[in-house]
């Protein structure tokens, strides 16, 4: 070796036979929860078990959009806290997370959509989150590349403008959190797959891995799109989740033309320009569950059509890279965070669909509190699994493009 450097997340350690807590999945949520467990709650004897490498899942594939303009009063405060944490974490981890606070513009293509936006904006403002309604002309002033003519498939009526949102570098979040974990004594075990979860008398006792058995009283499943399958396979618990492949892509680099994250529900399309100049654009979900993470010609065509309609200056621009990942969708487009029910010591954090990046910082903070104390923090109470049998589904579907096969 000509060059020897220590990975940010410490030297490789031996897998021990017991830990105070085991986290399955080295993604955003697993890393963030481990970090706060160690830093805030003094639980440092923690192992993160990662099948491939940290960031292999959605963590390294997402389009990095962050915002806090969700629909319901349960979701907005959680995402607001997550958004407020980026600058704090950047300092705390001593790692540049490249928060580009460029603001988000959600295009509205009908008067009905404008009315729905008014309600979402009222919710945001009530929670102290900046969000305004603007008309098509104002949107055009902000984003001159926008096509506001009336003869496109979905003419633009106006937009919801949310200045505090933007883009955070997703790999930096993975590496920064891993660095923070290692600093506080958490062990990260890559190339280690969880294969079974052991229980005895209704309590968690351990985790079986491809590298041996671990004894532990607490397990968090935060395996992104793989969580629901794992939880059913290992514990027989079924979840209201559908796992879909979701695709995104980037164009060749261009001179600066987009200064915001612009999205359109009607076109099923969003776009922003990365710091490298590429237009990052997504996202398309397959209409049937699958774990392929493969791309489709269908999506490339869809994206080219949509972009040439509402951002016509991109006509003729080449797509450079395309990739896929998994989105675990719930019927109410809100996640499931729960613990100690029906198994003591078992925690889950899943159903994050295509919004689990923007939330990971705050979720790590609260899930770690849950795991350290055994009591569910107020912030997470509405996200319990039983809400589905109690007919207390959250109303997030009203604010997002709902792609689940349930619709």
């Amino acid at each position, binding site marked *: 070796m000509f060059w020897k450097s220590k990975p940010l997340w410490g030297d490789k350690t031996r897998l021990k036979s017991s830990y105070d807590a085991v986290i399955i999945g080295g993604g955003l949520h697993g890393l963030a929860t481990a970090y706060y467990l160690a830093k805030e709650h003094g639980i440092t004897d923690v192992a993160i078990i990662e099948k491939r490498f940290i960031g292999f899942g959605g963590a390294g594939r997402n389009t990095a959009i962050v915002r806090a303009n969700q629909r319901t009063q349960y979701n907005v405060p959680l995402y607001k806290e997550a958004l407020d944490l980026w600058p704090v974490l950047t300092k705390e981890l001593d790692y540049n997370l490249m928060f580009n606070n460029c603001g988000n513009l959600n295009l509205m293509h009908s008067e009905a959509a404008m009315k729905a936006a008014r309600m979402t904006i009222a919710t945001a403002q009530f929670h102290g989150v900046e969000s305004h309604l603007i008309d098509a002309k104002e949107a055009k002033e902000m984003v001159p590349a926008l096509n506001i003519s009336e003869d496109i498939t979905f003419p633009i009526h106006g937009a919801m403008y949310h200045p505090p949102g933007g883009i955070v570098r997703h790999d930096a979040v993975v590496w920064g959190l891993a660095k923070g974990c290692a600093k506080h004594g958490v062990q990260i075990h890559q190339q280690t797959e969880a294969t079974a979860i052991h229980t005895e008398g209704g309590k968690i006792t351990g985790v079986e891995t491809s590298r041996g058995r671990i004894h532990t009283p607490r397990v968090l499943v935060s395996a992104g799109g793989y969580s629901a399958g794992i939880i059913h396979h290992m514990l027989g618990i079924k979840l*209201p989740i559908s796992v879909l492949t979701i695709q995104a892509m980037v164009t060749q680099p261009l001179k600066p033309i987009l200064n915001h994250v612009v999205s359109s529900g009607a076109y099923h399309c969003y776009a922003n320009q990365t710091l490298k100049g590429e237009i990052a654009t997504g996202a398309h979900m397959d209409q049937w*569950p699958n774990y392929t993470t493969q791309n489709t010609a269908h999506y490339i065509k869809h994206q080219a059509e949509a972009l040439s309609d509402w951002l016509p200056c991109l006509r003729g621009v080449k797509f450079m890279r395309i990739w896929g990942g998994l989105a*675990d969708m719930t019927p109410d487009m809100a996640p499931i965070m729960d613990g100690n029910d029906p198994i003591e010591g078992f925690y889950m954090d899943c159903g994050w669909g295509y919004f689990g990046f923007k939330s990971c910082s705050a979720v790590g903070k609260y899930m770690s509190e849950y795991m350290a104390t055994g009591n569910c923090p107020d912030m997470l109470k509405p996200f319990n699994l039983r809400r589905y049998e109690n007919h207390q589904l959250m109303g997030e579907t009203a604010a997002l493009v709902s792609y689940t096969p349930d619709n």
Partner: protein
Amino acid sequence: MALTLTCPVCGKRNGYEFRYGGEDKGPRPAEAGLTPRAWCDYVHMNKCTAGVQKEWWFHRDGCGSWFTTWRDTTNNLEVEQPEASK
């Protein structure tokens, strides 16, 4: 990834002609004595199998049939009914 499905009436067709109808969960539970939990289980809960599963499809842009098929969710290929499930 592309998907081809075999409609019992129309034969092999492009997957985009169909609407996914969910994992096969057996017959709809009887109304008598139905609990919220059992209903929720039937309506919402999934196994999310990474592998072969039995599922419902509707030939939306075709003959309108509802049918079940076996598909491997890791590669989108239709498969014969597994021996174990017969």
